[in-house]
């Protein structure tokens, strides 16, 4: 789960980039294959020195294979979720886009253990209580949403996603951050699970953090003129942007 969290954190920004969808279908397969092989080499080295398991590993090649394999599956699932590949996509094109997305996801997977400090970040004591959790969630959501909101991708994706895909995106925006924050075995996980109070149970906190990510996404889209009224199209855009924003919110909460 730590590797998946790292992969999602590094992979989602590239997933929301039109050029990835385009180049994944237009670059020669042999060039993409060379990129994947080179990335595998980098993953072996990263697995040896960092890795997604706690402590260094005796099996860096095996860990790199697992990292690449799970990253391929994860990338394909996210691309299907965002309707970038589907039953009508030529297999060659689907492989190209999936392989291109796999590269950053697998790097994130390989450095998963290093993405959050083992004892929480410096000054993390200052973020105690539910207000601190939501504040840092808003900060993380803002960083991710601000990177994507000015681009055309949320509008393009939202226009092409139907109700089923949007609903699945909401589910993914809740489940992935929940698993990242409470199951990924990053530092401070035990304290996060043990937090008490009406708003600090894992499920409640996840729902509240999604609410924060949703609000931040709506504000960012409004700021860049992508949303000016609340209708179905605007809602779809906010839901689309709230997915990476919720990943950012989860990353923020993992750091404290």
């Amino acid at each position: 789960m730590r590797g998946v969290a790292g992969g999602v954190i590094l992979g989602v920004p590239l997933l929301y980039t039109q050029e990835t969808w385009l180049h994944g279908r237009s670059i020669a397969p042999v060039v993409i294959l060379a990129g994947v092989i080179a990335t595998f080499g980098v993953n072996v080295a990263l697995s040896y020195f960092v890795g997604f398991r706690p402590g260094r590993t005796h099996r860096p090649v095996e860990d790199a294979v697992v990292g690449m394999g799970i990253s391929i599956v994860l990338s394909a699932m996210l691309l299907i979720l965002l309707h970038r590949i589907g039953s009508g996509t030529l297999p060659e094109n689907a492989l190209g886009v999936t392989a291109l997305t796999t590269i950053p996801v697998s790097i994130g997977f390989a450095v998963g253990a290093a993405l959050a400090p083992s004892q929480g970040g410096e000054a993390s004591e200052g973020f105690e209580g539910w207000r601190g959790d939501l504040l840092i969630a808003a900060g993380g959501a803002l960083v991710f949403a601000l990177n994507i909101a000015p681009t055309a991708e949320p509008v393009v994706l939202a226009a092409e996603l139907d109700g089923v895909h949007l609903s699945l995106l909401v589910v993914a925006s809740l489940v992935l951050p929940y698993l990242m924050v409470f199951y990924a075995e990053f530092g401070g996980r035990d304290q996060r699970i043990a937090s008490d109070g009406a708003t600090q149970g894992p499920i409640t906190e996840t729902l509240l953090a999604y609410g924060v990510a949703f609000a931040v996404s709506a504000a960012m889209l409004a700021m860049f003129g992508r949303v000016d009224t609340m209708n179905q199209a605007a809602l779809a855009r906010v839901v689309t942007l709230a997915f990476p924003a919720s990943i950012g919110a989860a990353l923020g909460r993992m750091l404290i």
Partner: protein
Amino acid sequence: MTAAKPRGMRRERTPFEWALLLVSLAAALTLAVGLAISAFTGASGPADLEVDIAMAEAPASGGRPLEITVTNIGGTSAENVVVEVTVGDVAREVTLALVAKGDEESATVIVPTSATATPHAEVLSYSDP
């Protein structure tokens, strides 16, 4: 002299780890072999673009919507595909960012309601990626 970093314990794999390894190997091999097959046996040659034109199903304001579908049956993707649609004296241009090989892309153009002649579409230009 600094002490070496502690290394992970060597231990037997659990059934879950075996399953994860097998699934990962299958996924990695599928991707690598699939890309290799595409590289060495896929279609080759330049882009070959076919254009179809039809009345768009979605209503549009300000005129008659026509849907253009460009299919690439060639061996190379085509970028910046410029398609010209003519209906009698009326001409419209639409640009598609990319039509990947083996794929199709659609766009809609609006012509005046008074343009009732048979619509015609052709690719004016495209560039190689």
